[in-house]
Structure formats: structure tokens, C-alpha cells
């Protein structure tokens, strides 16, 4: 314990001009979880399955860390984090299965509780909300409310709405509003319940980055990135697979052009990579260095996936030998401070 406190103190003492911000953290709001539990990924993939045990919900201290603010702050202090950007855990609380009206009620309750939760520690917590994406117009309206009325700093959405991908025309009112408000949209999958992903916890290890790949592909190919060029989108888990595997997308697009199958995009696929934001939840420094060789380091923001995930997030970023100190500062908090308008 004493050793850990020392580590935290050491991290603090090396202090930067910007606060250390964790942009990928989750909360469960018990009132909301009571409404969404039956429809959530752990329920859909079978109680007692590997996927449920992988999240440890209801076991050890995960639920406490998901809900209790004091426990959260203690953990932040231990990890050396000044501020958390907190998002509702869509794996547990996604509302897209409900009717638009019911979905709106669920998300309004969630956003209200989130605003209350973060207001208790405004110098340590910033909250982002959720919206009923099953109705693009309602989602746009609730986005406006959660930003302008509740003071939340952005919104978290999943990677698919029923069978619709994120670039679907029906969702354009949401994207238009997000661009207009200038708030970040955090794309984090609520989970893929494909039967092939039920074994060995693949729903988390393999399917989450796959969902993120589908989300980025739809946002690019369905024209969102061209149509709404100022929209700020953060893709969870370092963007999932595509930023690390864009060669095939570029080749595929060139082939589609040759065969007349391509929608007209302004850039090839990899040209869009630098238009997204990413978190650092990738657990491999070589990958972080690869990512920042493909896009500016200022597009990556530190994240932990609290209460799961990375437990030494600052050390993870600091141990890169390729990144400059300025780059590391941007990743650890500089970019997030601006993007989420922290301290304002």
C-alpha cells in the first residue's frame, strides 16, 4: 500500500502543466441497470457464460467500483489520475432495444443521474451522457439537452442500432447536432452477441475491436466523415482493429473503384484515420507507437476502461521511447482537456 502511494506521489511530482485525464471510464447507474439488465450483453450471451464472468459483475469489488464515488477517487489517486471522463457502461445500460419513447426515458434518467454523480466532485469527474439512438431526431434532441441543460461534456454511443450501422441516414440528425454542438461522441460497443463470440470471452477480446472496425467503416464509407467534417468522434480501445490494419481497406477501396463499386469519398480510407480521436486502451506500447506513426499523437487520449482494463495508464504512455515528452503530455491530458473543455 505504502509503495503504491509512493508511486502515485512520484507520478504527481513529475507533474505536467496539464492535468492527467482518463477518457475511458465507466459507471453503472443502479436505477438504469434495473431497467436494462435483461437486455444487456451479459444477459443475452447467457448468465454463467464466460462473458459474464469476464465482466465480474456482482462479484468482488467491480460493482462497488462501478458505482461508489469515493472508491473511484481512491483508485484514481492510486493511479495518478486527476480527472476521469465518465461514461455510462453501454454494455450494461444500452437502451436501443426499447421503443424510442421508453429509450428516451431510460437515457434521460441516466443523464440526470450522471449529472448528479459528477457534480459531487466537479474537479475530479466530468460526465458524458447517452441518447436513444433508435430515433435519430430524438437522439439529437436529448444530446442538446444533456449538453446545454445538464452540462455533460459529450455523449457515448454504441456501434450499431438494431441492424443499422452508425452511418445510416436515419441517424444523420444526430451527427448534424453533434457537429453543431462541437461535443465529442465516444463510440463504445454495447457488445456483439454473435454465438461464435460466446466462448472464451471472445465477446470482449475479439468482438469489441471488431465492432469498432464496423463503426469506423460505416462512418467513413456511409459518408459521415465527409458530410460532417467537424464532428469529433473518439473510438474506444485505440480505435479497434482498423487503425492498425488499414492497408487492406485502402487496397479494397482502390479495387472497388476499378470495378465501379465505390461510393465517392474525398480520401482513401486511411486518409480518414487522422479525423478520429482514440484512447490508449490497447495494452501494447508497440501498438501505441504504431498508432501515433499513422496519426498525430494529439489524436490519442489516455484511457483505462475503469473499473476494468489498464491499471498503470500513465506508465503505459510514459514507457514509449519513440514519443516525445510533448506528445506524451498531449496523450495524458492535453488533448482531453481541450476536447472535453475541462476546467471550464
Amino acid at each position, binding site marked *: 500500500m505504502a509503495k503504491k502511494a509512493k508511486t502515485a506521489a512520484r507520478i504527481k511530482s513529475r507533474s505536467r502543466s496539464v492535468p492527467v485525464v482518463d477518457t475511458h471510464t465507466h459507471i453503472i447507474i443502479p436505477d438504469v441497470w434495473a431497467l436494462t439488465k435483461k437486455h444487456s450483453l451479459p444477459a443475452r450471451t447467457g448468465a454463467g457464460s*464466460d462473458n459474464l*464472468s*469476464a465482466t465480474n459483475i456482482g462479484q468482488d469489488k467491480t460493482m462497488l467500483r462501478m458505482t461508489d464515488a469515493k472508491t473511484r477517487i481512491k483508485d484514481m489517486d492510486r493511479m495518478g489520475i486527476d480527472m476521469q471522463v465518465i461514461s455510462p457502461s453501454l454494455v450494461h445500460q444500452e437502451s436501443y432495444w426499447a421503443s424510442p419513447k421508453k429509450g428516451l426515458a431510460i437515457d434521460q434518467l441516466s443523464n440526470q443521474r450522471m449529472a448528479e454523480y459528477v457534480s459531487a466532485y466537479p474537479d475530479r469527474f466530468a460526465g458524458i451522457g447517452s441518447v436513444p439512438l433508435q430515433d435519430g431526431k430524438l437522439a439529437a434532441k436529448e444530446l442538446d439537452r444533456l449538453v446545454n441543460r445538464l452540462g455533460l461534456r459529450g455523449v457515448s454511443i454504441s456501434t450499431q442500432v438494431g*441492424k443499422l*450501422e452508425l452511418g445510416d441516414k436515419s441517424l444523420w440528425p444526430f451527427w448534424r447536432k453533434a457537429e453543431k454542438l462541437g461535443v465529442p461522441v465516444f463510440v463504445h460497443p454495447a457488445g456483439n452477441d454473435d454465438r*461464435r463470440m460466446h*466462448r*472464451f*470471452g*471472445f465477446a*470482449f*477480446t*475479439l468482438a*469489441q*475491436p*471488431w465492432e469498432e*472496425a*464496423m463503426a469506423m*467503416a460505416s462512418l467513413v*464509407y*456511409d459518408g459521415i466523415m465527409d458530410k460532417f467534417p467537424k464532428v469529433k468522434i473518439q473510438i474506444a*480501445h485505440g480505435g*479497434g*482493429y*482498423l487503425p*492498425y*490494419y*488499414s*492497408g*487492406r*481497406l*485502402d*487496397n*479494397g*477501396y482502390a*479495387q*472497388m473503384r*476499378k*470495378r*465501379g*463499386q*465505390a*461510393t*465517392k469519398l474525398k480520401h482513401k480510407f*486511411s486518409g480518414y484515420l487522422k479525423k478520429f480521436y482514440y484512447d490508449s486502451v*490497447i*495494452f*501494447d506500447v*508497440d*501498438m501505441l507507437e*504504431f498508432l501515433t*506513426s*499513422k496519426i498525430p499523437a494529439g489524436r490519442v487520449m489516455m484511457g483505462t476502461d475503469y473499473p476494468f482494463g489498464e491499471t498503470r495508464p500513465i506508465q503505459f504512455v510514459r514507457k514509449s521511447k519513440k514519443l516525445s515528452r510533448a506528445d506524451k503530455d498531449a496523450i495524458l491530458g492535453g488533448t482531453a482537456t481541450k476536447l472535453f473543455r475541462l476546467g471550464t
Partner: protein
Amino acid sequence: MAATARRKSRPVAIDFHAHFVAPEAAAFARPYSVTAANTTMPDDPRVTKKALAEAAKKWGKVTRQRMQDYKIRLKEMDRTGIDIQVLSASLIVQYTYWADAESSLRIERKSNDLLAEIIATAPDRFVGLGGVPLQSPALAIAEMERCMGHLGFKGIQVSGSAGHMELGDARLRPFWARAEALGAMIYIHPAGVAEQRYQKHQLWNSLGQPQEEAMAMMSLIYDGIMDDFPKLKICIAHGGGYLPFYAGRVDRNYLDKPQMRYGQTQTPSGYMKKSFYYDSCVYDRDMFDFLIKKVGARRILLGSDYPVGEEDPVGFVTRSKLLSAADKERILSKNAAKLLGLKI
């Protein structure tokens, strides 16, 4: 002989990823192929059905010629500096695992017989990997034995799953045991996912193939195949798909969650470095260098995805700044020659 003559001026090049098509097999498989499922139009008013049909016709002709005219094939090989092609059937157009086992076997046999004929036209330029009805392990074993014996092939190509079974399925263990005993080179190349979600923007190809490859590798690791059959020689198409480029998440699952270890004695990365081989068909120099860094030059085999893939496969390898001359030679031919038992 031709290879010997060319060797004097430059290293021999063996293209491990080159396809052929058996017209009869293609006709049998067409209704169930991913290309039949792929009927979605790009939602761009400038892309018309007529233009699409014309482009498809033109492109189809080029592909057919390159696939089926062996004079054109040899010319293309000479033009791109390929001495030997390792031929495998295009599973995109002639995948049979959906059929009843007897019909599937009948078609795979025809395709294998044709492959043997093609090889006989230029035995110093072609090497064969046969096809088997993998949905029926007993028949698959019998046909693998015929391929490795009577037909003189060097190995077998399989898709990313066996239809209703993942590659690590207990029912397929006799197949892997036999492949190991025969010393058969196994090439895993997915047939393409026909599900609707993968069809828009040809995502089955750009996003779906590397996903299937990740599933294949994970099943082989987690179902214990890699530990139980340590001498298996398995090469994964397209540089291994997503997994070698995004290993942090699966490794972390092994390291931080001992309860999530199945069928394995090391991290997934451990198997990536020590058990699998990969082709070089990734279309991005940074990715290629990253793959070398992660798995080493001894694990990578030159592969072009003829007739639709990398235009300059040899140059793609030789232009790498990371590789020594010896490593370049390994990737161009020595690794493949050793695995396939070829004298070059």
C-alpha cells in the same frame, strides 16, 4: 530450370498466396458464394447498375484470364519476378463446405485433379495446396492423404472455419493430427462471410477476411490445437489478419485474468511468434514492418493474392528498410522452401 537461370541475377521468389479456379467447382459453388450474397448497391446516385455491370464484366474477364489461362499466368509471374507460385483454389468462388459431404468431396476432388494437371504443365513453376471437405473430418482426411500422396501436393488450404465448426472443434482433431503426421502445410484463407451485415461496401472482403483469420487463430489457440499438435505448419493469409497487429487486448486477457486461460500454455502472442506463419499480403509498408517486429522475418512468406492482390509483391518485401538482405531472402523464398520441402 527457369528458376535456376533466374537465380543467378537475384534471389528466388516463391509466391505463397496465389489462386486458381476450377470452373466446374465454381459453377457448383456459385449460388452459395459470398459474391452471390453480395448484391448491395453503393448508395451513391452516381453509381449506376449499368456502369456496375460493365465494370464487373470487364474486370471479370481480366480475372478469369489471369486465373485460367496458364500462359498469361506464367507471363504475369515473369513480369512480377515470381519463380514459383504456390497454388490454392479461390475459396471466394469455389467454397464447398456448405454442401453435403459427398458432393463436397466430389467437387474438391475435381478441383484437386485440375490442380495436379496445372502443376504438370510447369512443374518447376507451380506447387499445389489441395482442398478438402472440411465439414466432414473423415472425408477431409482421406482427401488430404490423396493430395499429399498420389497428387504430390505440399499441403492443404482450409477456410477460416469448417462451416458449423470452428477450426479448433474437437471433431476436427483427427484432421489436425493427420496433417501434423503428414507434414502437410496448412494455409488458412477464409471463403468470405455471406452475412448481410458484411455486404455493404464489400466489407466482407476488407473487414471480414481479417476478422475470420482472427477467429481461426483464436480457436486454434484456445481449443488447444497449437499445444497438442506442436509440429503443425499453419500459415494465415493476409499477414494473419487483425490478431498480430492488435495482440495487446488478447495478451492482456491471458496475463491479467488467469481464469480466462483455455487450452493454452502461453500468451496468444507467444503462439503468434512461435507457432504460426503469415503471408506478406498486407498492402501497407508500416504494417509489414510492424509484423516483422512482432513475429520475426522467419515467420513471413511472400504472398501476392494473385490475380487480384499486390501488384509488385517482390518490391513490397525488398523495399523494407527494416530487413537485412538475409531476412529479405527468407521472406522471398527460404521460409517457404523449407516449409514446403522445395529445393531452390
